């Protein structure tokens, strides 16, 4: 017996859906339309009608060396961060999946970072990994400037990526643990009988059978790395894109240009490029990586 509500009139279901439709319209379709509009026009900063400029906004972005810098920074961020987050989540998930004593406690512990907002984690790490306190201070005393994110762009980029990894490992961990628990126990046991130790079993049996989960995480995490709220939030809270644009990821640059530089047109053009970049990456992943995923 399937229970189904059937609406007799055509307008009643629309009224029910209306609040959600309005929200989507206001916060998704309208902004998208505005971005496309702005990307091809020039909005005068002091008001007045927008002027159609064709691809000039894009040309301007491409001509800017700082723009290309932000593309490189974003690529590093969105590749290194997710790869480490997935690998660490995988190692933790395999460890917890062995159900050794105390694994219930660790399972809880490993999920926790995901519950913390990116900017909040960023603030915490700003202190934990600040060059003049704690472990980093001792290291700097021995080898001056071995760790100084306030001074070196590479160090600052490493810092924001570490925060991203710390938080998102908890997320990948949940998915990978769920994936592992759907791998039949008997397979691991068969591999153990075949002489494989825990490490070998993980590589030969567990990871291949996790391929669908790993692929899903790769796609979602890279998207997160490019445009995620945390990517912006962490950079904003920790480095503000500095030093010397060293951590200026594309999303940060877009927000910075739009709301500090008031260059809506340039920021809109960059947004569209960013969306295009994500589409290309996702396409590559589906085209070349998914072929090697066994769903069965």
């Amino acid at each position, binding site marked *: 017996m399937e229970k189904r509500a059937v609406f007799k009139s055509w307008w009643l279901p629309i009224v029910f859906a209306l609040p959600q439709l309005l929200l989507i319209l206001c916060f998704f379709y309208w902004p998208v339309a505005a971005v496309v509009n702005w990307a091809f026009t020039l909005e005068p900063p002091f008001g007045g009608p927008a002027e159609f400029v064709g691809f000039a906004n894009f040309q301007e972005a491409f001509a800017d060396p700082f723009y290309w810098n932000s593309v490189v920074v974003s690529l590093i961020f969105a590749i290194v961060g997710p790869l480490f987050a997935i690998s660490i989540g995988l190692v933790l998930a395999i460890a917890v999946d062995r159900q050794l004593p105390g694994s219930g406690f660790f399972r809880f512990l490993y999920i926790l970072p995901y519950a913390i907002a990116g900017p909040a984690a960023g603030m915490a790490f700003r202190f934990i990994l600040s060059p003049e306190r704690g472990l980093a201070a001792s290291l700097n005393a021995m080898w001056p400037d071995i760790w100084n994110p306030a001074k070196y762009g590479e160090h600052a980029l490493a810092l924001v990526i570490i925060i991203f990894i710390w938080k998102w490992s908890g997320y990948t961990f949940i998915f990978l643990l769920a994936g592992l628990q759907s791998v039949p126990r008997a397979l691991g046991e068969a591999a153990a009988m*075949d*002489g494989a130790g825990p490490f070998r079993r993980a590589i030969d049996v567990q990871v291949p059978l996790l391929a669908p989960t790993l692929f899903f995480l790769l796609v979602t995490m890279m998207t997160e790395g490019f445009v995620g709220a945390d990517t912006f939030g962490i950079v904003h809270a920790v480095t503000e894109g500095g030093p010397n644009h060293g951590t200026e990821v594309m999303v940060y640059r877009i927000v910075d240009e739009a709301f500090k530089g008031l260059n809506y047109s340039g920021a809109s053009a960059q947004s569209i490029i960013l969306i295009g970049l994500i589409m290309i990456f996702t396409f590559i992943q589906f085209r070349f990586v998914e072929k090697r995923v066994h769903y069965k």
Partner: protein
Amino acid sequence: MADIAIRAVRKSYGKTPALHGVDLFFASGEFVVILGPSGCGKSTLLRMIAGLEDITGGEIAIDGRVVNRLEPRERGCAMVFQNYALYPHMSVAGNIGYALKVSGVPKAERERRIAETAKIVGLQDYLARRPAALSGGQRQRVAMARAIIREPKVFLFDEPLSNLDAKLRISMRAEIRKLHQRLSATSVFVTHDQVEAMTLADRLVVMNRGHVEQVGRPLEIYHRPASTFVASFIGAPAMNLVRSRVEVESAGIRFGGAMVAIDPAFAAKLRGQDVTVGIRPEHCCLAAPGDGGVEARVDFIEELGVGRVAYCEVDGLPFAISLDDHTVVAAGDSLFLTLPSEHLHFFDIESGRRIETDAAAPVAAPAASQHSEQTMGVH
């Protein structure tokens, strides 16, 4: 080739005991079947030999070496799992050769041995396929090949045939038997299927609720079940078990309106005690209605093709009788039975353990049976 000694092995999950002190010895090259209902601890015992379960107490030795703390790979056992546990992402060749790959056998030799092993189980044409593209029987063969290729000292089978259809099960049973003759490695086979157990075993271990009920050759167990549990578990249909009192004066037991004679010496030994008496459906003989005998009312008939089974009622209790092709009966009929005393089994009413009849009457069985193969009259 290795023997397996199981000494006072216990297993508990938390506070729940699963095995209560099991002592067994499997000789080198023997084919042992562990039989029992689900939850009796037979799989647990097998997995403890394999090294997949921790041993709570006692010790297990393979080839004289205590293996309690050894990893599965160090024990020299190969195992065939109930659900085959094939690696779904590897080809048949990959599945069969995985153990060799792990132990670092060079590729050329590995391929040679995979081909050899595949031939033994008749899979040479399927090496490139994935398990998903195989039938149940073929998957079963891959699982066997995977065990064979390691040339193990001990084969462990965890209900390997239970997922196959009836016909395939019979042919795989024969193949496992042939394989054992050829490889002659010590084999331990766990099953809940008594036909599998009877046909495969050199020696049979019957388990119930974490205890070993009886160990022996299949026929020995069939003919001299050590307890009511074994008596009712082995044989189809199950042995008829009735509670009765041994009457010393008449040297018999009262049953179904008749007196069933038993050996007088034995009757004297039990002197008026209550016992559980058992007789297999195939050992009940028909008597002419006038001759007296145990009266059984037929409830329903099960046709087996070769013969039939009449499910009857005697003294209000269910009682099964195997009949041959020529005996035609219908539900509601009355059958009159003689119960030959040499086929009667006696069990203690409290413990369910067997009470030996020939300890009391050590005379040659044929003489004793001829003497007592008469039945008492009807009333």
